[in-house]
């Protein structure tokens, strides 16, 4: 698949969540126009693209945090903006990019917040709430931390706790906004492995915005590649990720090889002196203090 002009037709796969001809804008700065995408049911969809392509904005619109300037986001065929807030919160969950844990809140208390859309003025804590939080904490491996304060935990643990909160919400769809941004490489893989397991074992539809192309290709079964506010490609990573696409969308000359671990596509950027052009520093350029010339 390559760049498409204008809105793409809806994919054949059944889809509960879709954006139909949406124009996304902050104040009057338009990020994307006439964007049409569909999230296939039970998929692990990853939205990817270079900085400023509108991928986080699109996720915010899907999570109904941003109202599209035109077009609409559809949930089960109805405009998401017209649905009751609580009903949406029982169907679509979100792990925000930078959530804040109140001072002194414990892991169990934070995870219990995920039950908010299932509770009401009169209907408070129930057996179902107890079971959902226990399962969410077990699935994310934070049950042993239940009584610990969230602000004492490491970054990786904290992200798993937030994931547990989103899981306790028991929504068939779960959106993740750059969930690995503040984690080191080992915790990034750990967290994405967790997402993959949840997707396989619980059959939830996951939609994540990721920065790392290789991680996206490794974990997604459906990729949506955005470029300057338009869908450049969408489909399984094996079909979508090509050297031409990466060069065109990311401006990164690369070769695609088979990943020795997963058999999926692995993007390897071309070495600088293999591309041609200026691979040496011009005469007289000084390196910043502390940078070895061999590292440049």
């Amino acid at each position, binding site marked *: 698949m390559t760049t498409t002009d204008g809105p793409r037709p809806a994919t054949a796969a059944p889809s509960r969540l879709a954006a139909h001809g949406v124009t996304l804008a902050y104040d009057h700065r338009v990020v994307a126009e006439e964007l049409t995408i569909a999230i296939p049911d039970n998929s692990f969809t990853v939205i990817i693209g270079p900085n400023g392509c509108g991928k986080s904005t699109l996720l915010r619109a899907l999570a109904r945090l941003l109202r599209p300037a035109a077009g609409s986001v559809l949930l089960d065929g109805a405009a998401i903006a017209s649905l009751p807030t609580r009903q949406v919160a029982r169907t679509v969950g*979100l792990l925000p990019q930078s*959530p804040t*844990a109140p001072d002194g809140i414990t892991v169990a208390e934070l995870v219990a917040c995920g039950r908010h859309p299932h509770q009401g003025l009169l209907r408070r804590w129930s057996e179902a709430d107890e079971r959902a939080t226990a399962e969410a904490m077990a699935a994310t491996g934070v049950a042993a931390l*239940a009584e610990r304060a969230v602000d004492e935990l490491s970054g990786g643990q904290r992200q798993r706790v937030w994931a547990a909160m989103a899981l306790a919400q028991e929504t068939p769809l779960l959106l993740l906004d750059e969930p690995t941004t503040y984690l080191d490489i080992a915790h990034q893989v750990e967290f994405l492995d967790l997402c993959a397991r949840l997707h396989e074992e619980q059959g939830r539809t996951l939609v994540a915005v990721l920065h790392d192309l290789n991680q996206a290709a490794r974990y997604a079964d459906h990729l949506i590649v955005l470029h300057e506010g338009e869908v450049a490609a969408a489909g399984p990573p094996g079909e979508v990720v090509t050297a031409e696409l990466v060069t065109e969308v990311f401006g990164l000359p690369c070769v695609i090889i088979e990943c020795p671990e997963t058999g999926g596509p692995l993007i390897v950027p071309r070495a600088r002196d293999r591309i041609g052009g200026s691979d040496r520093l011009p005469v007289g350029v000084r390196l910043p203090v502390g940078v070895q010339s061999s590292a440049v």
Partner: protein
Amino acid sequence: MSGVGTVEVGDLRSPRQRSRTGPRGRRRARTGTVCLALALTAVAAAVFALGSGDYHIAATDVIKALTGGGDAGDRLVVRELRLPRVATALAAGAALALAGAISQSMVRNPLGSPDMLGFTQGASTGALVVVVVAGGGSAALAGGAVVGGAAAGILIFALARHGGMHGNRLVMVGIGVTAILTGVNSYLLTKAQLTDAARAMLWLTGSLDGRGWNDAAPVLVGLALATPAAALGLSRSLRMLELGDDAAHALGVRTAGTRILALTCTVLLSALAAAAAGPVAFVALTAPQLARRLTRAPGPNLLPSALLGSALLVVSDWLAQHAVPGRQVPAGVVTGLFGGCYLIWLLAVGQDRRRT
């Protein structure tokens, strides 16, 4: 402070009990104990305040007089002369603390109390306009305070609304409006007659001197209206809002609606409290923070804050009357001293925590 470095007692409840109350069950038990202790403190302080003065009455006689028995003279002194002042202190303290707890939780900032956000300054401007321009009595002054507080609230709301009304934006707009209104207030004081200016200054410091039932009634009605609204409509939503706007929204909280209701409650409560007792300093700022430290529970802690505010203002008013023999000072001086010391202590403790 909360939870950090403290030894937590294990969860002693049976699984069945636990499943009925959820993970906040143990918190609730502690919060309940704290509320009971604070309520008893407020009542004890009130009884003590009702008994003390030039004509001393023992605590048992105060209770007898309150319940309709005892000596006729005691009844007159306790119920007619001293109770209005103490009731005003209890109600204004609770209203200020509740307003502070709601607004601090809403803007996710311990400095986000009505005195910092400009509502209290607005109430002061309203009262000063009445004193200087219209020269009205105490009822008109209180009315001016309510109108001024509400006007400042609407102005701050309108200015902060554009751009999503986020916590920090509200604080910045509030600081700006406070600065402007402080200037206006100073100008109004220079324009006032000397006697009016003296009366206005006493009110501005926050004083409970000579308060009658007509002063206590509006704030009591305001409390009766706002407390259920806050407890039922706001408490849970505010707890979710403390997770950040995006997370709260995803959990099904109407963030804009919650903010509007929270702001309305804050403006109403702080303006009514100011109308009754003047813009008493620091109660709205410190009471919710102290309550949080006592309950060690996250969230707005509305009820413990209100009870602590009541106790704080009654004790401060008693100290203002009796701490220096023969010299009465306005209650606002005592709460100001107390609040200032608290802020300095908070900074010192905060730095210790960061170092460890």
